[in-house]
C-alpha cells in the first residue's frame, strides 16, 4: 500500500483491520477522512452516517455516499448483515442507547470495530478525585452540561457489556491518542490507555 494518504493515527489502527474490497459502514464519519482513505487505498464499498450538515457536505464533495443521521435512529432500516464491517469510532459514549446500538452494529455488520475514549484512564480518575468535579481533559474537553458524551464508560465497563451480550472479542487494542499501542493487561490498560479499539463479532 502506498503512503500517499496518511490519516490520523487512531484512524489508521481501524483502517488496518478492514479487508480490501469489502462493504463498510462508518457511523459518525465526520468529514469522511477514514472512509475516503478506505475507498481509495483499499477499494472498499463504503457508506457513512454523519449527524452534521457540514460533515455530510464535506463527504459528498469527496464523492462519498453519506446520509445525515445518527446511530440511535438510522440503523434499524439496514438489512441484517448488509456490511462486512461497521465502524463506530469514538461515538458509543454519545448515543442514547449504547447497548442497543452495539447489538445493531453486529446485526447489520458481520463484524464491528468500536473505539471508545477511556473514562477509566488515570488522568480522568485523578481529576475527579482531586477536583471533585466531572473531569474536563484534552480528550473530554467539554463540561458536563454541554458535552455530547452522555454515556461514558471505561475499558472494563465495555468488556463487561461485551461479555454479558455474548459478543466475541476478536481484537482489543488499547492505545494512546497518537495511535501508539499499549502492550499491557486489561487492568493496566484501563488505567493508562487514552482510548481502546475493539474488533467484535456476534
Amino acid at each position, binding site marked *: 500500500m502506498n503512503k500517499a494518504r496518511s490519516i490520523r493515527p487512531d484512524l489508521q489502527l481501524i483502517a488496518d483491520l478492514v479487508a480490501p474490497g469489502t462493504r463498510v459502514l462508518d457511523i459518525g464519519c465526520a468529514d469522511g477522512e477514514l472512509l475516503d482513505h478506505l475507498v481509495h487505498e483499499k477499494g472498499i464499498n463504503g*457508506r457513512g452516517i454523519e449527524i452534521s*450538515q457540514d460533515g*455530510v*457536505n*464535506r*463527504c*459528498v*464533495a*469527496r*464523492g*462519498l*455516499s*453519506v*446520509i*445525515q*443521521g445518527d446511530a440511535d435512529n*438510522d440503523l434499524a*432500516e*439496514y*438489512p441484517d448483515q*448488509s456490511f462486512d464491517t461497521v465502524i463506530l469510532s469514538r461515538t458509543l459514549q454519545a448515543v442514547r442507547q449504547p447497548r442497543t446500538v452495539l447489538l445493531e452494529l453486529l446485526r447489520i455488520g458481520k463484524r464491528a470495530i468500536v473505539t471508545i475514549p477511556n473514562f477509566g484512564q488515570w488522568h480522568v480518575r485523578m481529576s475527579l478525585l482531586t477536583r471533585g468535579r466531572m473531569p474536563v481533559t484534552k480528550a473530554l474537553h467539554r463540561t458536563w452540561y454541554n458535552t455530547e458524551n452522555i454515556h461514558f464508560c471505561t475499558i472494563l465497563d465495555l468488556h463487561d457489556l461485551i461479555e454479558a451480550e455474548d459478543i466475541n472479542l476478536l481484537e482489543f487494542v488499547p492505545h494512546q491518542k497518537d495511535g501508539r499501542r499499549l502492550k499491557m493487561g486489561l487492568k493496566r490498560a484501563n488505567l493508562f490507555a487514552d482510548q481502546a479499539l475493539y474488533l467484535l463479532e456476534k
Partner: protein
Amino acid sequence: MTNEDINSIRLFQEDPLTLDGGETLSPVDVAFETYGDLAPDGDNAILICHALTGDQYVASPHPGTGKPGWWARLVGPGKLIDTEKYFVICSNVLGSCMGTTGPAATDPNTKEPWGTRFPVITIRDMVRVQAALMDALNVRKLLMVIGGSMGGMQVLEWLATYPERLHSACVIASAARHTAQNIAFHEVGRQAVMADPNWNQGRYYGSDASPAKGLAVARMTAHITYLSEDALTHKFGRNLQEREAVTFGFDADFQVESYLRHQGSTFVDRFDANSYLYITRAMDYLDIPGRFDGRLADAFIGARDVRCCVISFTSDWLYPTLENKRIVHALNAAGVPVSFAEIDAAFGHDSFLLDVPEMDEMLAGFLSTATQSYQPPEAQNE
C-alpha cells in the same frame, strides 16, 4: 404566444405510448429546451425534471410571462449546473400545457381538444415520454437526472424504470408516494376547478369563458402548502394591505390575502385548468412502494450502480423529511450508493427553488464527483 415559439418534437408516431392506465397515445408532442452542447462521447447530459406547474424554461425566460427561468439561479453559463460544460435538457411533462401533449391538445381522432377525454396519466408515463425524448436526442445515458417536488418523483421513476440509463440521480423535497394529506389538498384544488361553472366538464376550449376563478382558488390553496407558517408570518404577519384599519368587509384587508389573490390570478394566465386536474391526479396515483408490496427498496434493485443524492428541508411539511428519508432508507436497503441531508431552511417546500447555500454546496459536491466518476458506455467498451 404561438406554437411556433415552442421547440417541440413529435414522438410515438408509429409505436404508440402505452400508458399505465391501459390506454395508448399516438402521437405525443414533447416541448423541450436544451442548453449547452452534447459532448461527442455523450457523457455530459443532465435531465432536469420540473414540478407540478413548472415548465421546460428552466434557464431561459418564459415566453408567456417573460419571467426568468424557474431555476436560472442554478442553471446557466458558469452557474452550478454550468451549461458551458453540461448539456442540459428540460422537457414539459406529459399532460401539461406548455407544448407537450395534454388535455388542451387536439385529439387526432375527433380533431377536437381532448378535454376530459384525455387519458389519465401517471408520473411513470411522464418518464416514459422523457426516455423517448432522450432517444431522439441521442442521449443513451444521463450523467444526472435531477428534480424537486414532482420533479423528484420523476427522478424516482427513472431510478425504478430506467436505472441502466443513469449515472447519478438527485431527488429534492419529494416523496415516493402521495399521502392522504397530499391527496386531500389536491382534491380541494380539483373540486375548486370543477365547481367553476365555466369548467363545463372540461369543455371550455375555444370559448371566452374559462374556469379561471376555480383554478385561481386551487392555486391559492396549493401555494399555502408550498410555504411554511414561519415564512408566511415573517413575510406578512397580520400586516394590512394599503390601509390603516380593517374594513369590516371582504376585500383583501390583509397582505397575505392580496398576495394569494395575486398568485391565483397570475397563475391562470399561464396554466390550463384541465392540465392541473390531470397532473395532480398523476401525483396522487404515485405509490412506488405499492407496486412492490410495500417494499420501496425492491423498486431500486436495478439502481445499484447509480449514485444518488436526496435532500429535504426542515420547514417542508408538504414532502417532509420523513418521506424523503423513506426514499433514502429504501435506496440504502437496495444497496444503492446514496447521500442525504436535511437542510435547515425556513421557506417551506419552496426552499428548493430559493437561495439556500447549504443545498447549493451539497449539489455542487455531488455533481462534481458524479462528473469525475462517470465513464460513458462507449469509453467502458474500449
